Structures are given as structure tokens and as C-alpha cells.
């Protein structure tokens, strides 16, 4: 009997524990294969390459309740939760990025999430981060020891000739005595420890984006993962802690980014307005607390729907400026927009303007943002009025913006309604709600009853039971016949809205109780996990027996 307990997730990567007999291993980990997996010591003539077809796999892949269980992309993938699995020869997949992602998706979508994944002979200091990012938890020393036998010096930046060791690039105990094997092992252990830190901070993506630069295949794996529809996105939380670093080209395809813009176009419902103003972004987040936006807002004076044009998010409606990652991204500001950014942003603007037909669209923009807006407007067949003369903040530009809006009606930017449409796909009726508090620390009440608060860390709405009454459907987690005491665990979940991602606000409903809380895993994991917290419960209400 083995147990896998996932303690922390970051995409497919996890911090977890694996228990076998009396041994507990903290994952991700580097192990001595024979010590943890005794069965592998006796493995003889059992090779089944990753590219083998189903018939061959069925005939030759070792079966049965082995520790670890051998799994294969074309094999039988029905396993109970809590197992350690091994993907034989995964090290050969690293050179084949398209296959890597195809095979990974086939296996990851089929196996229970609380499974520990062993990638034999694969891990090097240079690829440990992306292996972990791909959802592997257990590694060994085979690959680094092989490099040692080849006289290769391993660093997170790649593999180098032994002579590099004398260059002072590393000062580990191994390097001090010229012990290549000790150095290579040490580096691997340290890289795994570093990856663990980044997982804990939910920032492994940043480490991977930085590490993968030295290896084209790794970049390809990263990009293919982002583009493998639906598979990877499900593992990505709706909001993370901390900053989203928009410092690479890959960021445009990052699930958090594509999800945000996709929802802006498909879910978000703008306030009733005749005029839309496109504004530049600001370094300070949320935008409205910046100097520049104070001035823009003064000039606009509530007479238009405000939309901020920005890379990499495309378009951020004013009411969503608190929502992750709109208030959380950090992009290097040079004023220069590359062709892909313009294309991407232009496409989002076009889709938005096609869906929401404003009488007038004003572009208070310059440079690349203006070029992107013009591209989008042209695609949507909308004529832009440009109110910038020189810099957007010049007296002349601000005066032009003001006068362009003269006589236009007031627009009510409603953060609660706007956010609910983005978050739950449903624009709630807020007419009877009163918003209190100092922005962005706001809460919505009816009378003295709280309905919603904004989580200042993520910008997401936190509905109370009364708040959920205004959201008649969706984001429900159905539980069995029990009253949760504390958090709801995965085995207790009967059903869950497939749209739920980690970090989403959910309403737990069951025959005995309802509860408000936050999803600790995506819906698909709630339904397939044998263990682990599915929903972190905030409040429970016991239902009267009927």
C-alpha cells in the first residue's frame, strides 16, 4: 500500500509526499533507484520504447501492482490512486518535444492526480525544472552519473566539458576537490531543491522560462504544453500568489494570459455605454491608482467605458483591473511593441469591439498600443477617434480627450458585476447592492448583509451564501451526504462544474449542507483524486433534515 499526498500544486508540478511501507519521501526528490524501488533491481529484458504501439505494449509492458507501476502512453492507464508510476525511457522523450507533450497528455489525463511520477535516467540540473513542470516528482542520479563518466560538467545552464570545472563556475565541495561526480549529483539535488522553492511560491513557470533558454527542445516543450488545447490549462490555477513575469515571448501563450483575454471577450459584460475609451497601461497596478490614470479619469469624468490596452493581456476593462493577472503582471517597458504583441492585442480588441458595438471608440493611445488598437479597429470595421497629440498625458491630449467626451452620458463602472461576469460567466444584478470600503478593499452589502467581497490578492469575488443566491448556476461542487467539518476532501466530491480551476470560488452543495469556499484543485482532479483537499471551506451551513 502506497500513499501520495499532494500538498501544493503549481500547474502540473507538485510538492507532495510518497509513502511506501514505513518510508516517506518528500517530492520532488532525487532517489537511489534500487533503494526505493526494489522491484527494478531485478528488471531484465523488459524494454518497451515510448513509441511502441498498443499491441506490443499490452504484450510486453510489465503488469501488476509493482512499485513503481510501469506506464506507457499506449498502454492500459487505469490505475488506483496513491501509486508511484514510472514512465520507462522518459529520458528519450526530451529530444522529441511534440511527442513529449502528446505522450504526457495521454498519460496525465488518464491517471489519478494523486500519483507520484518517476522519470528514470532523465534528470539533469538543466532539465529538472521542466521535468518537474511537466508533472514528474521522482528522479534518479543515472543521467548525472552518466555525464560524470563522460567527463561532462553539469550546470543548470547546460552541459559543459570537464575543463569548465576548473574555471571557477562552481564552488561546491565536489568542485573544490575536483570530484566531478560529486559536483554533478550535488547540482541536481540543488536544482530540485530550487524547483521545490519555486513550486511553493507557485512560480515554477518563471524558473522554467528562464532555464529553458539554453535548450531549443525545452522551449519547444514549453510552447507545445501551452498550445495543447485544454490539457495544460486545466492544471493552471485561476490566480497565483505574486507577480506574473511577462518577460518572454512565451508569455503570450501562457494559460493565465490566454484565459484572461479569452474571458474578456467571451464572458465579460461591459457596462451600458455609448463610448469606449482605449487607454494606455501604467506601471503601477491597479492602474487607477497610478498618476497617469488619475489624470485620464479626471479628463474622462465617467463619460465612457474605460478599456486599458496592454501587452500581454490585450485588453483590460476598468472593472477587471484588480483581477489576476491584470494587477499582477510585470512587463519590461520600452515602448516598443513587437509584431506578435500587436497582432495578439489587435486580435483581442477586434473581437471585443465586434461583440460590443459602441457608438464611438476613442483611442487615447500612442506608439505600439495605438498601432495595435488601429489594427483591431480596422478588423472590426470600427472607426477610431484619436485624442492623443504627442504624449497621452500632455495638456493638449488630456484637453482633447475631455472635449471629445463633452455631452456624453455617465457610465457606471460596476466592479462586482464586471468581475462576476468574468469569473462566473454571469453578470449579476447589483441594483440593490451597496458597495462599501476604500478601493480596492471593497465589499458589497444589501442592508447590513454582506454579499460579496473582493479578494485584494487575486481581485476575485468572494460570495457569501447570500451572494451565491445571485449566481444561480455554475461553480458548484456537489458532495455526498455529510456535513463538512473543515475542508472538503476529494473522495467526498460527487460532481463538480468542469470549469472550476484551482483558486476558484465555489459553492459546495450536498443533501446535508452547503458551504462556501475556494477550490484547491481543478474539477477534473476533484473527481479523480483519491486524497487531498478539494475545497478549502470558509463557511458551512447545515441544511434542515427533510
Amino acid at each position: 500500500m502506497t500513499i501520495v499526498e499532494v500538498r501544493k500544486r503549481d500547474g502540473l508540478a507538485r510538492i507532495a509526499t510518497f509513502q511506501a511501507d514505513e518510508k516517506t519521501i518528500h517530492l520532488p526528490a532525487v532517489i537511489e533507484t534500487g533503494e526505493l524501488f526494489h522491484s527494478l533491481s531485478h528488471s531484465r529484458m523488459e524494454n518497451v520504447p515510448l513509441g511502441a504501439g498498443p499491441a506490443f505494449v499490452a504484450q510486453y509492458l510489465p503488469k501488476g501492482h509493482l512499485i513503481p507501476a510501469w506506464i506507457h502512453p499506449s498502454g492500459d492507464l487505469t490505475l488506483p490512486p496513491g501509486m508511484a508510476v514510472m514512465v520507462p525511457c522518459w529520458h528519450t522523450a526530451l529530444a522529441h518535444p511534440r511527442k513529449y507533450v502528446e505522450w504526457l497528455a495521454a498519460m496525465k489525463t488518464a491517471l489519478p492526480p494523486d500519483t507520484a511520477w518517476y522519470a528514470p535516467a532523465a534528470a539533469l540540473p538543466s532539465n529538472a525544472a521542466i521535468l518537474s513542470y511537466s508533472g514528474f516528482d521522482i528522479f534518479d542520479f543515472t543521467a548525472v552519473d552518466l555525464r560524470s563518466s563522460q567527463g561532462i560538467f553539469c550546470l543548470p545552464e547546460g552541459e559543459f566539458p570537464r575543463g569548465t570545472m576548473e574555471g571557477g563556475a562552481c564552488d561546491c565541495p565536489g568542485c573544490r576537490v575536483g570530484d566531478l561526480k560529486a559536483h554533478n549529483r550535488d547540482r541536481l539535488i540543488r536544482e530540485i531543491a530550487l524547483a521545490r522553492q519555486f513550486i511553493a511560491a507557485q512560480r515554477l513557470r518563471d524558473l522554467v522560462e528562464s532555464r529553458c533558454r539554453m535548450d531549443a527542445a525545452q522551449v519547444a516543450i514549453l510552447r507545445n504544453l501551452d498550445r495543447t488545447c485544454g490539457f495544460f490549462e486545466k492544471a493552471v490555477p485561476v490566480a497565483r500568489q505574486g507577480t506574473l513575469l511577462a518577460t518572454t515571448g512565451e508569455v503570450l501563450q501562457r494559460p493565465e494570459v490566454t484565459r484572461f483575454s479569452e474571458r474578456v471577450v467571451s464572458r465579460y459584460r461591459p457596462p451600458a455605454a455609448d463610448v469606449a475609451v482605449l487607454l494606455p497601461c501604467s506601471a503601477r497596478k491597479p492602474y487607477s491608482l497610478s498618476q497617469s490614470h488619475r489624470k485620464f479619469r479626471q479628463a474622462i469624468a465617467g463619460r465612457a467605458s474605460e478599456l486599458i490596452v496592454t501587452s500581454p493581456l490585450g485588453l483590460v476593462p476598468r472593472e477587471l483591473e484588480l483581477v489576476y493577472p491584470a494587477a499582477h503582471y510585470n512587463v519590461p517597458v520600452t515602448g516598443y511593441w513587437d509584431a506578435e504583441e500587436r497582432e495578439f492585442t489587435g486580435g483581442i480588441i477586434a473581437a471585443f469591439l465586434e461583440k460590443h458595438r459602441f457608438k464611438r471608440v476613442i483611442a487615447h493611445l500612442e506608439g505600439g498600443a495605438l498601432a495595435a488598437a488601429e489594427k483591431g479597429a480596422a478588423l472590426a470595421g470600427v472607426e477610431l477617434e484619436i485624442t492623443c497629440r504627442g504624449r497621452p498625458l500632455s495638456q493638449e491630449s488630456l484637453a482633447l480627450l475631455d472635449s471629445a467626451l463633452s455631452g456624453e452620458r455617465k457610465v457606471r463602472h460596476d466592479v462586482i458585476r464586471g468581475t462576476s461576469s468574468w469569473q462566473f460567466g454571469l453578470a449579476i444584478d447589483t441594483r440593490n447592492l451597496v458597495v462599501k470600503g476604500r478601493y480596492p478593499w471593497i465589499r458589497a452589502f444589501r442592508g447590513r448583509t454582506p454579499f460579496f467581497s473582493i479578494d485584494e490578492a487575486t481581485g476575485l469575488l468572494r460570495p457569501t451564501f447570500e451572494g451565491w443566491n445571485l449566481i444561480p448556476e455554475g461553480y458548484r461542487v456537489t458532495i455526498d451526504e455529510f456535513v463538512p467539518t473543515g475542508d472538503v476532501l476529494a473522495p467526498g466530491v460527487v460532481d463538480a462544474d468542469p470549469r472550476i480551476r484551482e483558486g476558484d470560488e465555489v459553492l459546495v452543495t450536498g443533501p446535508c449542507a452547503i458551504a462556501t469556499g475556494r477550490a484547491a484543485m481543478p474539477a477534473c482532479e476533484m473527481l479523480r483524486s483519491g486524497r487531498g483537499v478539494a475545497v478549502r471551506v470558509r463557511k458551512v451551513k447545515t441544511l434542515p433534515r427533510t
Partner: protein
Amino acid sequence: MFPERESDRPLAAWAGRDRIEGQVMSALTIILKTGGCAHDRCRMCSYRHERYNRLTHGELEAGLRAQLAWIENNFTLEDFDAVKIYTSGSLFDPLEVPVQARDALAKMMRGKIVIAETRPEYVTVDHLNQFVTLIDNGTHETPLFVAIGVETSNDTIREKCIDKGFSWDDFVKATEIARSAGAGVKAYLLAKPLFLTEREAIDDMISSIRDLSGTADMISLNPCTVQRNTELEYYWKQGAYRPPYLWSILTILSESPVHLTCDPLGGGQERGPHNCGVCDGPLVKGIRDYSLSADRELLSALLAIPCACKEEWDFVLREERSYCMPLTR
């Protein structure tokens, strides 16, 4: 695919020197284009694609006779003590090589030692007797050797890694039939087919050689190469296969109690048996020399050549496992 060759020529024919039953002699090697291997499934074999397609029996016979004529016109047959005949299949399969054409070939080679390739299921007393009668003029004690690609004595490996379609017992029976017809037996072994670690491949060869003692008169060791349009090539392109190290081939040759002939085709290249690229050249040449000279000291000297890749090979032998292979390319 291979370029289409003229049908009236053999696929290849060349003159060389071979070690046959302990004697170095001049030998003609001929690869005939035939109706093709009836089994046509081995995972590493691309010869099976080389065949006349959709020919009638008569047309096939005519094509083969034309090839024989070409050989007569291009070689002085008196110069050769021996001839090795490959068909990319089985010389003794009457559907692949019409009997009349085979008889014509036998008459042409009368007085020489003939080594003829075949699968065991076509080794019959009648066919062999007929052939031996035609080639034998009393010059040689054993004028015919049937050459069978048994590849390994391990049935599991032969089935899983090669898909050869016959068993060790089938092979042994064929050798008994051959002997009763007065023919000798040459066995081909395949060093490192698919799905074996470097260590498993060496062990497989060592035990196969042991099992062949007393059964085969001659053993030829074929280090596996990656031929085009094969299942092996598919896996090789995915990084799932590495041809054997030359160090492993040398180890097998040196641990074998009997002399093995060995021509490391593609030696030193990424598709053939290779080491690191630095030491390959002299080792490939050395193996060819040994094949002819059977000089054991040469083997020891080759194995003692120092090279940085030896440590890597050593590591691979120790650490490569079914679930993490190949460790190197």
C-alpha cells in the same frame, strides 16, 4: 527506398577473401534479387524490401538466369574457392527462387564451397541433396554450408526483439537435416537487436555462442545496423535504439571460445556499431582483420586501446536497464 536497379544484375556481387572452416580463401559474394523473403517481418531487416514484385514464376526464373549470366560475364569463376550466396531471403524456398534457377546456379558453382542463406523451414533433405549433387565434384569434404540467421539461441529475444518467426528447435532440426544431407551449417548471430540493453546484448551473444557449439560449424557475428525503412529505424529515430558499442563487439569476440567471423557493416557510423567517433576507425579495421586472421592477440591489443569513451561504455554496461535505455546515442 532503394533505387530501382536493373533487373538482370544481382543486387550486389564482389570478390573478397573469407575465412571458411579455418582457411582463408578467395570468395565471391553474390546478393541475388529474388521473389523476396516469404517471412518478410523482421524488425531490423530492409533486405526484405528488395524483391521482384508481381512476377510470374517463369518471369522470376528468367530474371534469375539473367543475373547468373551477368555473373559469368563479369567474374572469372575459376578464381574463387568459395561462393557466398544471399537472396535477402531463402535460397531453398522454391517460391522465392524457382528450382530450375537454383539448379542452374548450382551447376555454375560446381567444385566450389557454397555458403547459401536460408530460413530453416526450407532446409529439406531433397532440396539439399539435389543441390549438393550438382555442386560436388569431390574437391571439398563439405561442399555446401547452409547459412541460417538464427540470430540468438534465446527464443524470447528472437520473437520479441526480431520477430523472426522460428524457434531454436526449428533451427536445430534444420541443422540435423542439413547434416543428414551432407551439408554443413553456418549460423548468423545478431548482436544487439531492438529492446536489449548493452549488457543484455552481450550476454545474449555469449550464451548463444555457447549454445551453438556442436551445432554450427561456423558462426558469423553481425553487429546490428540501422537499415532504412525498418521498424528498427523508426525506434532509432525516436532515440529508443542505439547500435552496439564496438567495445561490446570486441568483448563478444574475445569471450567466445570459438572464432567468429565478423564484418561490422556501418562500423563507426551512427547507424552502425560505433563508439565515440575517436577510436572507431582502428577498431573497425581491427575487427575485420581478426575476422580473417583469427589472431587472438590482436583482439587483446584492440581491447587495450585507451579511449575516453571506455568509461562511458563501462557505465552503460553497469547502469543501463530496460526502463532507461539507451543511455547514450
